[in-house]
Every structure is written in C-alpha cells, then in structure tokens.
C-alpha cells in the first residue's frame, strides 16, 4: 500500500506516490533554482511543467497514480539542468561575467593600438581613443616631443608599439573606445567597486546565516576563507595597479633622461660623455660604450614599464620579445665589458717626462702671477679629481701644481714633470711628451698659463707638476692669482700656501724666507 499526494501541474491534478513525490519535488526545485536568474524563468518552468503533465497523462492510461518508475522515466526524458546546453553560460567565472557586463556598459577602457587608423604602428591613434582626444593633436604632440626629447621619442614609440596589443576583435575595439576616462568615471568606478564589495559582503552574510543554520560548519569555514581571500586579493589588486602606474612613470622618466643625455648634446651627463669621447681616437668604441650603457640601463627600465603595464592594463607581450630583450641585455654586458677592457688597457702603464727650462732672468726680484683671464673651470673635472677637462671643444690640462725650491746654480729654472698613462711604456711616454706648458716673461713679471696643452687630443689622465728653482739671494713675489697654482711650498716660516700670497720671499740657504711678513 502506498500513500499518494495530490499535485497540480499546469492546471491538471495528478495522484503521485509519496516516495515518487519526494524525488519529483526535488527535481522541480532544482529546475526552479536553475532558472531563477534567467529572464522569463517562471515561464520556462511552467512550460516544462506543462510538458511533464503531458507525459504523465500519456503514462496514466491504465492506472491512476504516478509511481517512482514513472518519475524516473520522465526525469530522464526532460533531463537534469546540468545536461542543458546553456549550462556553460550559467557557470562562467564571476570575474568574466563582470567584465562582459562592463563591456556592455562600455566601461573600463583599455589601451590598444588602433591599426585601422595607423600611420606607423597605430600607437598615437590608440592613445587618442583612450584619452578621447583628436588624433591630430596626438600626432602634433608626438612631433613636439620628438623635438624636445629627441631620439628618446621614437624609442618610447617602439616600446609602446611592442607592448600595446592591437585591437583585433570587436570586443577589443569596444574596449579601446569604452567609456571616457575622466574624473566622473573614476569616481563612478570606485563607487561600483564599493557596491560590488557591499554586495559580496551581503551575499556572504546571507550564505553564512544559511550555512550556520544548516550546520555545515566545514563549508562555512571554507566560504569564510574564500571571502577573506577575495577581499585581500582585491586590496592587493588595487595596490598593484597603483604600483603599476608608478612603475610606468618611473621607467618612462628614466628612459627619457637616459636617452636624452646619452644620445643628444646638452645634459648633465654631457661632461662625462665628452671626456669619454677623448678616450679613443675614432670614437666608435665610445659609441659602442654609449649603446652598451643605454641597453644596460634601458632594458631593465623597459622591463619595469612592461611590468607596470601588465599591472594596470593586463598587457602582455609575446615571450619572444622577452627572450629577445634578455639576449640584448646580455649583449649590453658584453659591450660594456669589452669597452671597459679596452679602456682599462689604454691606462695600463704610466710614464713621466721631465724637461727643464732655464729662464733668462738676472734681476733680483721676480713677480710671479697667473694668466688671469677669468676663465671658469668650476665645472671642470678638476674638482672631481681629474686634471684634464674638455674646454671649448679642446682637451686641456688644468690643476698643475707648482713648487718653489732652491736652485743649484745661479739661474732660474722651471722643471716640468708631465705624467701620463698609456697602453704600453712607449705610448705613455709619448703622451707625456705631448704635454706642454707656457709662461710669459714681461719685464719683472713671470706670468704662468692657467692650463697645459695636450698634443694628441686623447685623455690619458695627464698630470703636470712644476718646480720653479730660485737661486740663493734672489727674491720672488707671489701674486694673489697664484692661489690655484702653488702647492705645498716649503718655507722657513712654515706658512700655508694661501698665507704666502701677497708677500715677498727671499731664497736663503735654508730655504724661502718671508721678508715682508710681520
């Protein structure tokens, strides 16, 4: 004996066995759940119920109650929701659904290259779509940039060309032109995000209540963990995109500075660059050094920009480009190492060249001064320990050091000790011999030049030490202009170089003695 339940399907009454009813009720509830979010879900359910009623009628020819077998047969015919082909659509990951929603609303713009509107690579046209400006202005701006930062501009263009994907599919084209990016939208986006979060929290709350009362504690904890993970991921994503913007800006800035300073004239690295130009005669190794430096610093910066773009825009480049960049970076190591070795080789040996010049002068007092034409060597390398500097397109020596000692005979002598480095002893010697220094003798004035000249315009860390020999009994006067020239002159008063200026000094057997000091 079986108890029956009465049900109403599409306006028809059926008697159904109790055990069968349980199964059937479950089935209908599953269907209800499946279609609850669908537009017209109620109608679909009614249609299905109608069809089931039809099937039931067909099976009730010789009996009056629906049995478990009947139910199982009918469910087999109608199928479980998971067998419906629309299943995939229902189970899309939430994120993707959001994305599609955004797309439909025309939200969330992404940067693409617009190859349909391209002149070269479509970078400008893509950016104009993103920022919603007239393409004409973007190109003009690019040309202006080209004039301002010079070779850096095409460099950046190429990076963007590689990094930005071209908008190929309709979806991408829509994304490219999406909603305008402005303050209102950013505000709106944040609001949407907050709403989203709020919804999530509410859903979570609902679920929690349900599950706690359903005493499925384990599932509840899993959900808990999932929820917190999603919150943390959200925060992390936000930080990541901020970081991405920072990375792109930083990388871009360094690249512009780097390319500008190394490829063009006129920048803070100019001096170093100029000096490097004087290392080799032809300059081709200097250019390989430049390229090496650009690649060595530039490529990691490009990587930083790409990383930033990935964080902001989810842009990825083909792995071939990455491998290529890595290879190029290793090439830069080689270039740098090679130039470095070449440079080091040029400074292997040191040599000195000493010349003594006897000064044709008999008077008792010699007035020493330096050719004071007020040249500004302040920016020269002297301050940084270099004794050679590029000056008005010529390599000259500065920072000579003058000592004053006792002459062995009765004549004034100027001893010049030039020193230089070179690949080997001969080249070093030849380079040292190329150092020349001049002074002028006018009446009682001996006027020193404020530089020494270098014959072969090559930088080999040349230095020049001068020693002026004074015969015993003669007097010299040190003019204030000698300040930068004199270096550690011994005297009987043990006075500092600076204090010796503006005084008369007599050469005695024991050394220089001040005759005008108090």
């Amino acid at each position: 004996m079986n108890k029956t339940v009465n049900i109403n399907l599409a306006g028809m009454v059926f008697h159904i066995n109790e055990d069968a009813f349980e199964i059937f009720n479950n089935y209908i509830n599953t269907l209800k759940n499946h279609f609850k979010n669908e537009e017209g879900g109620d109608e679909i359910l009614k249609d299905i119920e109608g069809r089931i009623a039809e099937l039931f009628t067909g099976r009730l020819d010789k009996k009056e109650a629906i049995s478990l077998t009947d139910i199982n047969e009918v469910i087999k015919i109608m199928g479980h929701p998971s067998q419906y082909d629309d299943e995939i659509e229902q189970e899309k990951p939430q994120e993707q659904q959001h994305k599609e929603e955004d797309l439909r609303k025309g939200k969330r713009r992404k940067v693409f290259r617009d190859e349909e509107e391209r002149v070269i690579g479509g970078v400008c046209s893509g950016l104009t779509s993103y920022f919603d400006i007239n393409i004409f202005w973007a190109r003009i701006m690019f040309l202006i940039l080209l004039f301002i930062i010079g070779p850096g501009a095409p460099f950046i263009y190429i990076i963007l060309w590689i990094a930005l994907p071209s908008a190929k599919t309709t979806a991408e084209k829509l994304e490219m032109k999406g909603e305008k990016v402005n303050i209102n939208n950013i505000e709106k986006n944040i609001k949407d995000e907050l709403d989203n979060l709020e919804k999530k929290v509410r859903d979570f709350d609902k679920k929690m209540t349900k599950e706690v009362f359903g005493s499925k504690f384990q599932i509840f904890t899993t959900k808990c963990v999932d929820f917190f993970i999603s919150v943390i991921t959200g925060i992390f994503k936000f930080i990541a995109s901020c970081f991405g913007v920072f990375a792109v800006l930083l990388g871009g800035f360094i690249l512009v500075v780097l390319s500008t300073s190394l490829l063009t004239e006129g920048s803070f690295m100019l001096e170093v660059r100029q000096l490097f130009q004087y290392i080799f005669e032809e300059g081709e190794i200097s250019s390989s050094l430049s390229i090496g430096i650009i690649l060595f610093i530039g490529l990691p910066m490009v990587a930083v920009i790409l990383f930033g773009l990935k964080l902001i825009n989810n842009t990825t480049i083909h792995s071939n480009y990455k491998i290529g960049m890595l290879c190029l970076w290793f090439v830069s190591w080689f270039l740098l190492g090679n130039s470095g070795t070449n440079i080091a080789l040029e400074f292997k040996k040191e040599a000195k060249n000493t010349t003594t010049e006897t000064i044709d002068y008999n008077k008792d007092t010699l007035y020493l001064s330096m050719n004071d034409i007020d040249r500004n060597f302040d920016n020269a390398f002297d301050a940084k320990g270099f004794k050679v500097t590029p000056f008005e397109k010529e390599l000259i020596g500065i920072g000579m050091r003058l000592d004053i000692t006792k002459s062995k005979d009765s004549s004034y002598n100027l001893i010049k000790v030039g020193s230089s480095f070179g690949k080997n002893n001969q080249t070093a010697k030849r380079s040292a011999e190329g150092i020349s220094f001049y002074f002028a003798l006018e009446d009682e004035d001996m006027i020193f030049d404020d530089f020494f000249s270098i014959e072969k315009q090559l930088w080999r860390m040349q230095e020049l030490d001068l020693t002026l020999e004074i015969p015993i009994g003669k007097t010299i006067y040190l003019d204030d202009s000698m300040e930068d020239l004199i270096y550690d002159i011994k005297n009987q008063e043990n006075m500092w170089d600076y204090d010796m200026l503006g005084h008369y000094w007599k050469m005695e057997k024991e050394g220089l003695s001040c005759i005008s000091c108090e």
Partner: protein
Amino acid sequence: MKIENTQSQMRKGILEYCILSILKNGEAYPSDIIGKLKKAKMIVVEGTLYPLLTRLKNAELLQYRWEESSSGPPRKYYSITEKGNTFLLELDSTWKDLAKAVRLTTKTKKDE
C-alpha cells in the same frame, strides 16, 4: 578544456537555427519540435528546448497561441514572426559560410 563544453557550444548556436528552421514551415507545439530534434539527434533531453523557446519568444523571433488539447493541458503553438524570418535568413547565409569554412579547413589532401 572539456570536450562536453566544446560540443555543447557548437550545438547551442545551431540549435536556435534548427528551431527557427522547423518553425519556418508552419506552426508547431513543443512536442513536435522535440520529436524532430530528437530524430536529428540535436538534443538529448527535452528540458533543453524550453529555455530556448522562451528566449526566442522574448527576443520577438517567435510568437505563440494557446490551443486546447484532448490529451493533457493546453498547448502552446509556436510560429515564427516577421523578425524571426529576417533573422533566419541571416542565419541561413551564416550557416552556409560556416559550413563552407569548416569544409575547407577540415578537408584532407586526399579530398582535393
């Protein structure tokens, strides 16, 4: 990647095309349509059809009228609308293109 997903995705678009095609020749009620689709092995379970019919109806490609039935509840008789016909024409040409594309791309050397 599940083969079932790919299969059902392939079937999904075609199923709508098939339903519209069946109704092109005159009105029918769901059981008729199911019969034809089952015969053609386009659907396995009947439940698949009802959401599709409702969607097509909501998209104004189909319309229906109620008719009393001697053996069960009243039936919905579906027929194609003007809009549905235009839609179907477009699907026809799309299908031809697709069929051609599939034929060309899956053709082996031997067939040439």
